[in-house]
């Protein structure tokens, strides 16, 4: 009795949770496995509908023979003229590979097609895969669905020889190594500042947090103006006698400029995490340390930082993941290939260069890198349990 109820409850529970389970399954879990599979293939999205080409078989044959069934051509003559591979490639418009050509030559039912043509049975729209089902004696399933070629580790070995892969990976690594510590430290400082009992503290909290809820596109536009040659930054530097620098155009300054901007946008977001952590620090500890004569500096390093350990681990982990994947600011602001990061390179390969399989392989490499970095990091900085 009890068990039955439990099962019923479980069913109800899963039913209620099903929208999110299905969503995650369809949009996250399955794509991850698909990407892993594509990384071993030469998958190309544009070939997905390769065998769904639609055509009017009668028209295609008329154009192939230059004759219509109304002119009563002789069957023998048509048979002698007909080459199924030519017909499929030229008149239907589906490219075949060498194996498929051999298969079509062997198994295509030429006689049946010509008879149907002469009996005017073909004047309708066919989908190529269905057409092949009708006119291949066997193995029509080859033409049922596009299957990318399995090419083993070729994509991966190509990546290791690809100069752009290394440049973009190096850029992402540098980005991560600089941004993560700085943004974490800055977030702590901001949190400590925002945690003071001073006038207008709410205003500061809001202004620190504001960048992280502003859209990346808007922020990118603002920084484009700030960094431009006659922009704000150069005007300020001009007072110091530093010549105008094209921050985003120059290969050497572009990435550091984006890093600074990224730190500014994300520090406020992580500040909230630290604020929550700060409020968890018991006032008794702080008071005790004050009685022991610890000044603010000592308190910060000896009490605040150690007590924020769990938050720091979280922020560093999220920071590393986020910075290794940095994309939108690079997409909006970087003009020069030398300065792109790895996720931008994945995007370019997938959507601009028509190399989805290769892009998937790089994405897998990035996944492995992030996975192992996080793993190592969790080993080194164990979370403390109270």
């Amino acid at each position, binding site marked *: 009795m009890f068990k039955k109820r439990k099962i019923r409850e479980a069913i109800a529970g899963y039913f209620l949770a099903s929208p999110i389970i299905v969503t995650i399954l369809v949009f996250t879990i399955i794509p991850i496995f698909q990407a892993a599979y594509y990384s071993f293939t030469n998958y*190309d*999205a*544009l*070939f*997905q*509908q*390769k065998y*769904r*080409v*639609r*055509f009017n078989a009668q*028209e295609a044959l008329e*154009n192939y023979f230059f004759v219509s069934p109304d002119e009563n051509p002789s069957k023998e003559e048509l048979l002698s003229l007909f080459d199924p591979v030519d017909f499929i490639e030229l008149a239907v*418009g*589906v*490219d075949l590979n060498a194996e498929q050509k051999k298969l079509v030559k062997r198994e295509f039912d030429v006689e049946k097609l010509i008879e149907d043509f002469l009996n005017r049975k073909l004047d309708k*729209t066919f989908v190529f895969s269905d057409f092949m089902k009708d006119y291949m004696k066997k193995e029509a399933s080859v033409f049922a669905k596009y299957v990318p070629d399995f090419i083993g580790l070729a994509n991966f070995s190509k990546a290791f020889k690809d100069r752009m892969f290394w440049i973009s990976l190096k850029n992402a690594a540098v980005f991560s190594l600089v941004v993560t510590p700085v943004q974490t430290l800055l977030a702590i400082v901001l949190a400590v500042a925002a945690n003071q009992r001073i006038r207008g503290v709410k205003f500061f909290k809001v202004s620190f947090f504001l960048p992280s809820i502003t859209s990346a596109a808007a922020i990118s536009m603002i920084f484009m103006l700030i960094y*431009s*040659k*006659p*922009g704000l930054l150069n005007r300020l530097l001009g007072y110091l006698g530093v010549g105008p620098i*094209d921050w985003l*155009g*120059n*290969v050497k300054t572009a990435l550091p400029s984006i890093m600074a901007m990224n730190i500014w946008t994300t520090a406020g977001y992580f500040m909230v995490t630290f604020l929550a952590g700060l409020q968890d620090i018991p006032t008794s500890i702080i008071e005790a340390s004050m009685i022991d004569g610890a000044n603010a500096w000592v308190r910060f390093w000896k009490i605040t930082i150690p007590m924020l350990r769990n938050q720091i681990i979280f922020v560093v982990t999220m920071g590393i993941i986020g910075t290794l994947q940095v994309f939108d600011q690079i997409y909006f602001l970087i*003009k*020069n*290939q*030398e300065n792109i990061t790895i996720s931008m390179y994945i995007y*370019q390969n997938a*959507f*601009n*260069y*028509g190399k989805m399989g290769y892009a998937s392989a790089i994405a897998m490499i990035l996944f492995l890198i992030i996975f192992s970095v996080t793993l190592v990091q969790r080993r080194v900085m164990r979370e403390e349990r109270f």
Partner: protein
Amino acid sequence: MRKLSVLLVVVLVAVMSFSEVVVRLGGWVSSPSETQALEEVVKAFNEEYAGKIKLVYEPIPGDYKVKLTAMLSAGTAPDIFYLDSSYAEEFFRKGVIQPLDLLIRKHGLDLNDFYPSLLDAFKYDDRIYGLPKDFSTLALFYNKRMFDEVGLAYPDENWTWVDLVYAASKLTRDLDGDGQIDVWGLSLYRDGAFNRVIPFIVQAGGKVVNDDLTTALGNPNSVEGIRFYIDLHRKYKVAVAPQDVGAGWLGDAFGKEKAAMVISGPWMLGFMRDNFPNVDFGVAELPKYKQRATMVYTVCYSIPKTSEHKDEAFIALKYLVTQGMKTFTEKLGVLPSRVSLAKGLPEDPIKGPFIEGVKYAIPWRIPTPSGIFSKAENEINTRISKVWMGEMSLEKAIEEIVANYDSWVR
């Protein structure tokens, strides 16, 4: 009785709408006025073909090429869609676009009326895969007031590179005497500039690719063209990039009168009218050198091979490039891709140079073995930027391009 008649009408409408073939038209959204004109054309088409074909316009916002690729791979692409010449070849090569030759023969359409350079942009393997919607060529925009100030005659179609450098150097001026240049003779793109360098390459007698699709950028004439483009900035010091004068793009630099000349397309006309109505400017054909050359940017309407209603789609496509193009030319002032619709335009002082240009223009489409040029374009652009900024020598850039080109286009 009344109820019955209402019912009858409803049934009739339902039956009619079922017998109608729905043809979907997809394209990017460029401006409200263009959308409006397109909707007008769609409405006119639907009235003419009521009960037979219903054309439905579906704007595709966002990153168009990415979305179109996704739609094509999911089998949900519209029956007619725009394709830009710069990346169309990839779609042709991968067999997703319906060649139109047989449909043109079946339904009749005079291709001789189209400018040949525009049709060339959409030909592959001797077949035509799309019909040009309209086009934009590059021409030389000049600020009349500035030319008057320095006492120079306005540019005309007889201008050569020498005239360009001479005028630009006269127009590059320090107005307030603080040792800083306030107005530049020319503004040119530094980043993403390759398609703007191509006219110079061809004017110098060079070309981008050889007949066997290997790169021709190493050939001395091509190098001369690239060198001249960069020399305008580095050696003659008469040209700057728009961002160097606080402008977002060439039109902005020209409108703000930071540059006396820019090389740009007809999209500048509406921009200048709306934002800088007081700048008095003229347009001339690009200066020539060993020969004339300019770039033409064009977009076609194509039909996917998977479309269920290719005949109906072609009938609608045909309407778009005939009646539709007429409306677009009249309402939007776009440059028509058909000679018969361009009547009177060659004599127009502003639009004339663009129309003249299409006669000798090269379409913005670089054929490659894979059909994809964007990787090579990124790599070449990066090197042009570096040479422009003096971080790399042109010789080194050319050497790297020639050595690696093959790996970028496969």
